[in-house]
């Protein structure tokens, strides 16, 4: 089977599977009745980008949220959003190396924290995580929040990291799943972004990680090549770096981009 038709078939399957995990939020705004700007973004960006989309002047914004790795896989299969915003820089860089996107830019930072339920938590620090009977949820491998978590665990002594991993009860496909398990009360603790804690409406309490454990959480954004609306995409990214988007990000608990 030739490459294009093979990809065509795989695309069909991928779309079907991905449809389960991804969810779409149309965010409208004032502005011209021009083409919409389609944005694939990491789950942790949901609140910030939804707010930004409502204020966006350059047209209607269509947002699609899922684990960043899943979105990258979609782009590899040929799906072309105008903008790809990931929770790390590795994924956009990889796509750039594959010639699928323009050169990525870091647009914001976030902080990985240990989150516990606001009421009645049994965990107060990372040290408590290895205790017998403690349960936690983390992101799966390959998902940015999961990789960041594993970076943290790697920086711990081997015995401790092993004990903590033994207490993991679920490897979620995106950070939304980890937050969900926490807010349901299904686990005692989980590694999420600070922005997620702020967005959980008071139901979660963040425990800051010691500096030596903190990973650098840098979000990268890139314009997808040969996408339908490059002008709209450029306008979106500009606002993200310095405009309504940047404001929305800081309002929702994100840090300023590195070097600003």
């Amino acid at each position, binding site marked *: *089977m030739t490459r294009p038709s*093979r990809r065509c*078939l*795989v695309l*069909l*399957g*991928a779309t*079907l*599977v*991905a449809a*389960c*995990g991804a969810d779409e939020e149309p965010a409208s705004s004032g502005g011209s009745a021009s083409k919409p700007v389609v944005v694939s973004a990491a789950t942790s960006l949901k609140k910030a980008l939804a707010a930004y989309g409502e204020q966006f002047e350059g047209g209607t914004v269509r947002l699609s949220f899922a*684990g960043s*790795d*899943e979105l*990258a*896989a979609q782009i590899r299969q040929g799906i072309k959003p105008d903008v790809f915003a990931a929770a790390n820089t590795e994924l956009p860089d990889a796509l750039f190396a594959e010639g699928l996107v323009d050169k990525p830019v870091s647009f914001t930072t976030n902080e990985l924290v240990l989150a516990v339920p606001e009421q009645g938590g049994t965990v107060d620090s990372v040290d408590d995580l290895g205790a017998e009977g403690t*349960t936690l*949820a983390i992101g*799966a*491998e*390959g*998902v940015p929040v999961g990789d960041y978590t594993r970076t943290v665990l790697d920086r711990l002594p081997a015995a401790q990291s092993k004990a903590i991993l033994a207490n*993991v*009860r*679920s*490897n*979620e*496909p995106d950070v939304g*799943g980890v937050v*969900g*398990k926490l807010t*349901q*009360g*299904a*686990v005692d603790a989980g590694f999420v972004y600070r922005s997620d804690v702020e967005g959980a409406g008071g139901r979660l309490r963040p425990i800051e990680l010691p500096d030596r454990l903190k990973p650098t959480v840098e979000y990268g954004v890139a314009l997808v090549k040969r996408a339908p609306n490059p002008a709209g995409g450029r306008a979106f990214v500009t606002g993200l770096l310095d405009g309504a988007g940047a404001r929305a990000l800081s309002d929702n608990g994100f840090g300023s981009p590195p070097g600003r």
Partner: protein
Amino acid sequence: MTQARWFGPLLFTALVTALLFLILPVVAIFVDTGPGELLATLDDPAAVDALTLSLWTSALAVAIIVVVGTPAAYLLATRSFRGRSVVITLIELPLVLPPAVAGIGLLAALGPNGLIGDSLDDAGVRVVLTTASVVLALTFVAAPFYLRQAEAAFSALDRTWLEASRTLGAGEATTFAQVAIPAALPGLIAGLALAWGRALGEFGATLMFAGSFRGVTQTVPLAIYERFATDFTAALGLSAVLVAVSAAILLTVKLATHASPARVLAPR
């Protein structure tokens, strides 16, 4: 005459289109996966874990569904009582619920903050994120498939068979076991196959209610989803395995019914 000439080909085209659409993704999986990759998948212990978990949790769910559902369906089919149509609609409800809604519902009922889950949690019984919760989720989504078929199968029985059994000295329970079930068996087995297929494929409700953890709650669909983003080949391989297993189950069940509906039941 003119109407007849295009109607036939129209029907044929509709069927071919439907067939192609349904078969295409399945065929694509196998075309993309060589037999070498399929076998490599089976070498991966995580994949084997997922497969084993999927098989036995779905089997257990189906067993529960059949044991509880068969008498329930019989009652529904043979007795008329007030509110019967309401009960039937309630039973069919999970059928039209999106799996995500099913997941939410299970959480709302049995989650740590749920209606019943709250008290359970206080008593120290945490349901979520366990293998038991996988079985619960599968049972919830697959049960209506069996119940519907079973109710239809029992309804289709000739009532005089059941009455004849009673006049020959057999009580209600004996009639149920020795006349109703054997006579309705093909329909019951079809329902079982449907329910099992549904249980094997369940994803959304499982993810939300049971979580995803290898060997405990990561069933094959969840494992496929995890691999899809990072290792598409592995995802293909696992998909192929699941398709093969599901097809095997379906085939076995069909053969069991067709071979001889009578041989399934031993004569007294």
